[in-house]
């Protein structure tokens, strides 16, 4: 085995050298495949996007925040996975949960984990949820012209110990919410949440304080969405963030 090839620098060097040689000999060089104008590669042009669907709900409480999400990913009418976790831990007090395209969700979550680590090394402290909210907004906007196909909810405990949920669109517009729902079943879940929890129009926002009631409601909402949305099902993943850390549990729901 030629270990030299295992470093990127050498590979690029070789490519570069090869090009040099070929240009000396006046060979008409084939452009690198990435540089090729690949807008023509399929009917309808370059399309990097596919929607893998799935639903996620987040509800903020007085001293906790709860995420309920399904675990199904699908493409067209096919199920790709029945136990995919769409929620990622960023810090001990903060998780991100997303719906949309799985490739972009994974990339984004990994990037955020890396950014959190960089932050911890640089500033010798863990980023707060507020900082992460702005960071995620800027990260998403950095791809303004080729957006991440991910619809995110950032959930965590803020500095006052209150639960908070931040909702995003694909290109990084964000707002602080008391609850949020994203993904294929968002139209079905939003009215239940509006009715059961402190809504957008309510000026006095008293957050729910009983975690078991909120958990039951979150679970029921995902169950109800699975009844009517074909892209939601298989399992419900409950993530509860509170001052003691993060708890995760899963329960099966209808699989058809």
């Amino acid at each position, binding site marked *: 085995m030629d270990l030299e090839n295992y470093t990127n620098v050498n590979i690029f060097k070789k490519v570069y050298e090869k090009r040099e040689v070929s240009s000396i000999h006046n060979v008409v060089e084939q452009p690198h495949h990435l540089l090729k104008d690949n807008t023509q590669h399929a009917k309808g042009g370059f399309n990097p996007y596919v929607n893998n669907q799935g639903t996620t709900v987040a509800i903020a409480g007085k001293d906790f925040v709860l995420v309920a999400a399904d675990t199904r990913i699908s493409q067209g*009418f*096919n199920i790709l996975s029945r136990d995919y976790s769409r929620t990622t831990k960023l810090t001990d007090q903060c998780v991100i949960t997303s719906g949309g395209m799985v490739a972009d969700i994974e990339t984004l979550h990994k990037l955020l984990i890396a950014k959190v680590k960089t932050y911890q090394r640089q500033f010798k402290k863990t980023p707060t949820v507020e900082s992460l909210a702005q960071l995620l907004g800027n990260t998403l906007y950095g791809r303004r012209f080729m957006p991440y196909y991910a619809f995110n909810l950032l959930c965590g405990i803020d500095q006052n110990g209150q639960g908070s949920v931040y909702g995003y669109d694909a290109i990084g517009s964000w707002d602080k919410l008391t609850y949020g729902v994203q993904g294929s079943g968002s139209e079905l879940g939003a009215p239940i949440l509006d*009715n059961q929890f402190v809504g957008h129009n309510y000026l006095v926002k008293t957050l729910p304080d009983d975690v078991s009631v909120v958990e039951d*409601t979150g679970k029921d909402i995902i169950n109800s969405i699975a009844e009517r949305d*074909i892209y939601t099902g298989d399992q419900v993943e409950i993530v509860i963030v509170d001052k003691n850390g993060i708890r995760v549990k899963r329960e099966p729901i209808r699989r058809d």
Partner: protein
Amino acid sequence: MELDYLKTLPLGGFNFDNCIRNRAMAESGILQAPKTMKTGTTICGVLFKDGVVLAADTRATGGSIVGDKNCEKIHNLAPNIFCCGAGTAADCDHVTEMIKRQLELHRLNTHSENRVQMAALKLVAHAFKYGGQIGTHLIVGGVDVKGPQLIECSNDGNMYSMPYHTTGSGSLAAMAIMETRYKENMTREEAVNLCIAAIEAGIYHDLGSGSNVDVCVITRNKYEMLRNIKHDNFKVFSKPGGYQFKKDRVQVVEEFKHKLVVEAGEQPMDLS
């Protein structure tokens, strides 16, 4: 003449007046032409020793939303002929209903049992006449003088007969089961179990199919409709105690009370 206006009325059949408008709407991209409800479906049929088994799932979808969780996709055409429908829900319902009447008339005229071949041929002729625009993908099964018959009729006017058929969005999953487990001269029980397994494959692996399994077994002089023979898919969790809907969240602006007066005698309906 007073009845002249009758000449301006359409004579029957389909009305194509809005075709050009719908195409223009689709092309402009501003307005969406109305969409039909498709039954993303798994249906199948199997021949066995002395009859036919037809089976279907019970989910009807409109886009990504489940429209009906327990619909009936096995239609009756004649006492000895049944058919499973996939494709556009309205087309399947109306075409089978139309053919059912034609078969009944034929039965009364000839005083004899309908043949499956004829039912399929009528379905196919109708589908072919409209060049594939009628979205019916059907599996017709029955028992007639020639014995058990199973025929698939596609929307473009094609018709073919094999010992086992699957159609709909879950047809690949169902066909995988059929191909591995089908054998000739099965007993009734084996055939029913095979059909259930095939439909369940569609239910669990295809998003367009779901809910329960319906099975229809047709043998000589007898049919048996086994509706919801499998019903494993239901809501597993509901919030204990249910929900409270607070009344004060909706503002009551005005209240009206109307007195309803019912007079004796027949009243013409007010259609204004």
